[in-house]
């Protein structure tokens, strides 16, 4: 039987989200060397993942703010406009922290964006308010990708916080996998949100970040638990320094 000591050590730390980028790569390499059929590797991942998930229950539950359940359900089902939850503008103002990432009410945002085959056109089309519109002076950069990977663009206003990611014709990913956005500063990838396209291959997301120091944006396919460092080759790359 192969030695799993090193892998167990890394899996235990990863389960607690404590791995640094280089160690994540070491673990990925170790796992690859054991192959996808390594039962012991899988057992360790399951068991330590279960331990990590259970640790949350050491904390006292927090009362959920009034309206939050309706808001989340409304966002999920596309009926957020009918909710009595805090207004989107209010939530954004209160919730905006440095680097915080959120998905906006996707239906409203999607309604403000029109995708064309040759590029990205932006306009307000029956949105619920200006807060969900992409500014008309936004800089739009198309990601480069292999044929068949779909199209993806990033829209942002230089010097301002707020980045929209808009995609179309994105292929469905296997179960348990998501697209993860990376903002690369020099050689350091800063993780962005993990995203799944809609059934029709479209995707709209908002990142509460500022791209002044970002040289390149990239998107990789990662496990749905998201990764702290890229574990696969990017499927989309956008060079923001030359656009």
């Amino acid at each position: 039987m192969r030695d799993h000591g090193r892998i167990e050590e890394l899996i235990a730390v990863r389960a607690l989200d404590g791995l640094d980028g280089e160690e994540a790569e070491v673990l990925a390499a170790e796992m690859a060397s054991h192959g996808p059929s390594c039962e012991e590797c899988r057992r360790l991942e399951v068991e330590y993942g279960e331990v990590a998930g259970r640790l949350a229950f050491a904390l006292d539950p927090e009362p959920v703010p009034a309206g939050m359940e309706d808001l989340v359900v409304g966002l999920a089902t596309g009926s957020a406009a009918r909710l009595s939850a805090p207004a989107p503008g209010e939530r954004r103002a209160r919730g905006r922290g440095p680097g915080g990432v959120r998905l906006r009410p996707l239906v409203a945002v999607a309604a403000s964006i029109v995708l064309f085959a040759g590029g990205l056109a932006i306009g307000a089309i029956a949105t619920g308010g200006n807060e969900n519109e992409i500014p008309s002076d936004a800089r739009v950069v198309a990601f480069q990708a292999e044929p068949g990977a779909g199209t993806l663009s990033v829209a942002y206003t230089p010097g301002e916080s707020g980045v929209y990611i808009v995609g179309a014709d994105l292929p469905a990913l296997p179960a348990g996998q998501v697209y993860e956005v990376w903002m690369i500063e020099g050689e350091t990838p800063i993780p962005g949100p993990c995203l799944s396209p809609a059934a029709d291959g479209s995707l709209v997301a908002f990142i509460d970040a500022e791209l002044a120091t970002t040289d390149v944006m990239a998107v990789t396919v990662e496990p749905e638990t998201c990764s702290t460092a890229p574990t696969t080759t990017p499927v989309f790359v956008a060079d923001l320094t030359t656009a």
Partner: protein
Amino acid sequence: MEDALLLEMTRSSLTRGVTVAVDLSDARDRELVEAIARGEEEAFRGLFGRYAPTALALARRVVRQPFLAEEIVQEAFLAVWRNPAGFDRQRGSVKAWLMVMVHHRAVDAVRREESQRRRAEESQRSDPVVVLDHADQVAEAVGAPQEREAVRNALGGLPEQQRQVIELMYFDGLSQSKIAERLDLPLGTVKSRTLLGMRRLRSAMAGLER
């Protein structure tokens, strides 16, 4: 219905040699996830009602910003709605899957902030850091349900040094290298304490109901 599902899952677990117990609570959770996959809103509300309070506690504990924590919980539950097939019944309980998603997003948020703050606070990085012992804070809840008590007992039963690194990693969202830096320990020591602590927790939690 639940008994049949329980039996099936137990058999599956035994076949795989996974040393975790299965109970009706997780059977119910799995039914909810299956119903969510069918687009049933009530099931989504059911799962939210069961776990949003704990998810919120976890997110707040890690990011320490109430509204950012709400966004993280919101994002995690939306991920469940959008991709319920992401739950793999072979890989553990629904509640652990959900909390792992919340934790990962919370840690990402903390590290993203840290990255953005790094340049501005370069000079403060060498300042001494007071390491809080959160064990008391974590363990002082009154009237916790059985599971909470069991998890707290498992955590409280760890040797102090192991508990410290696990709490810094999990509840404060620090990476192993940051912990080594903070505690002025060799990285290898942090790794070994983490592994030993996690092994103990795994043993202690192996008998817990899902």
